[in-house]
């Protein structure tokens, strides 16, 4: 389904990454695999380093640190926004919403629409759509969109499918009225494939217990528990290759722009390999579709698109503007894309936590 917005913009973007870095060559000692095969995996997928939290750091810790940074640097006033959208799949508690936890820890005003959205790899685009829709209300003039996940603690270190690529992080995106032209988006979802990306235990269907913590042989020499993230790698790969290229084609048609007119494709970052295959299929040059986030920081779910932008296009987005095509795809399953002119931001950078 298609969406259209106008007179709305992203005015600033901050990414908060855990300072703690893990290296693939250390991770692979835990895998039940010959070293040569692990090194082959590293080479093909482009795994190298990834950032993961330590000492029980939770989503609100990363978010509060980032918000405090913006307040301290006078990049955002603490009363200058009317909604706080938190997109996450690693909430501090089952309830209350993490947005309220952040509101409370920062002593934010009560006239603040706090809402949590459970979304993953398409979460940046879903969050932007939510923000744009809220801006239709005259009482909401500016919105803080936080994407945050600390899922590394829910991935088995003995799961070669997911552990080498997992990353943690938060991004804070300020969305407000004003404009740089029209914004086009589309979104599709398929709940029948929901098991392709799942943490089976920990909700109400399968509460955590000593049983759900037991590592099970998942085949292919990988071991994980029901408490752990389970990704059906080949099914997700197939889903992305089949659905993403036609989605982008339909988006650009809707926006009436040609592929050449797009300056950058800032896509979710599952791994370098998948992005290269997508670029090949879409006949987009690699330099227009940056793929260097997993090898440097890991795949932090909904935070990867802000990370791609801040890491690769900081100068372009601070000074002047660019025509950007975004795409996110993952849990749900969900696939979403957005085309917009982006730039003249008041801030666009990455900081470390702590």
């Amino acid at each position, binding site marked *: 389904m298609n969406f259209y917005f106008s007179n709305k913009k992203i005015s600033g973007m901050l990414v908060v990454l855990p300072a703690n870095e893990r290296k693939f060559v250390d991770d692979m000692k835990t895998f039940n695999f010959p070293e040569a095969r692990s090194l082959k995996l590293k080479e093909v997928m482009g795994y190298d380093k990834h950032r993961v939290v330590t000492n029980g750091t939770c989503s609100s810790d990363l978010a509060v640190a980032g918000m405090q940074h913006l307040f301290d640097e006078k990049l955002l006033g603490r009363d200058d926004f009317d909604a706080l959208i938190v997109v996450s799949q690693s909430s501090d508690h089952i309830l209350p919403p993490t947005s309220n936890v952040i509101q409370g820890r920062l002593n934010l005003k009560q006239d603040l629409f706090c809402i949590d959205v459970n979304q993953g790899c398409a979460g940046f685009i879903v969050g932007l759509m939510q923000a744009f829709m809220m801006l239709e209300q005259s009482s909401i003039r500016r919105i803080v969109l936080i994407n945050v996940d600390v899922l590394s603690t829910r991935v088995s270190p003995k799961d070669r*499918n997911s552990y080498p690529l997992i990353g943690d992080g938060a991004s804070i995106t300020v969305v407000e009225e004003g404009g740089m032209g029209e914004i086009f988006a589309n979104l599709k979802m398929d709940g029948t494939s929901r098991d392709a990306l799942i943490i089976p235990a920990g909700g109400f269907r399968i509460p955590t217990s000593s049983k759900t913590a037991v590592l099970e042989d998942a085949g*292919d020499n990988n071991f994980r528990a029901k408490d752990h993230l389970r990704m*059906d790698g*080949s099914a997700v790969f*197939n889903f992305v290759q089949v659905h993403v290229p036609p989605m982008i084609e339909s988006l650009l048609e809707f926006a009436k722009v040609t592929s050449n007119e797009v300056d950058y494709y800032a896509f979710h970052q599952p791994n370098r390999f998948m992005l290269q*295959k997508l670029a090949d299929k879409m006949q987009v040059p690699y330099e227009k579709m940056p793929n260097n986030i997993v090898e440097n920081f890991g795949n932090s779910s909904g935070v990867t698109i802000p990370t791609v932008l801040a890491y690769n296009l900081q100068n372009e987005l601070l000074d002047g503007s660019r025509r950007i095509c975004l795409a996110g795809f993952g849990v749900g399953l969900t696939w979403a894309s957005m085309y917009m002119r982006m730039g003249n931001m008041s801030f666009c950078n990455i900081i470390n936590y702590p």
Partner: protein
Amino acid sequence: MESLYKKLAAILEIEEVTSSAVLRDFDIWDSLTVLSVLVMLDKDYGINIDGVALEKLETVADLASFIQSKGRK
């Protein structure tokens, strides 16, 4: 199908494959190899399947006839 055999041999890092060889019996038949085969099927034959469908095929000959039934070339 001769080119398929060559492509499979390259992915499996061996000299040559025979039609009766059982896919999962190869030493390096793991998720990474499965992915490499999926990519080859997509790129060279325009076939998109997932790993589960691929694992249902027993031998190299089964894979070859699967491609012939689905493929565009």
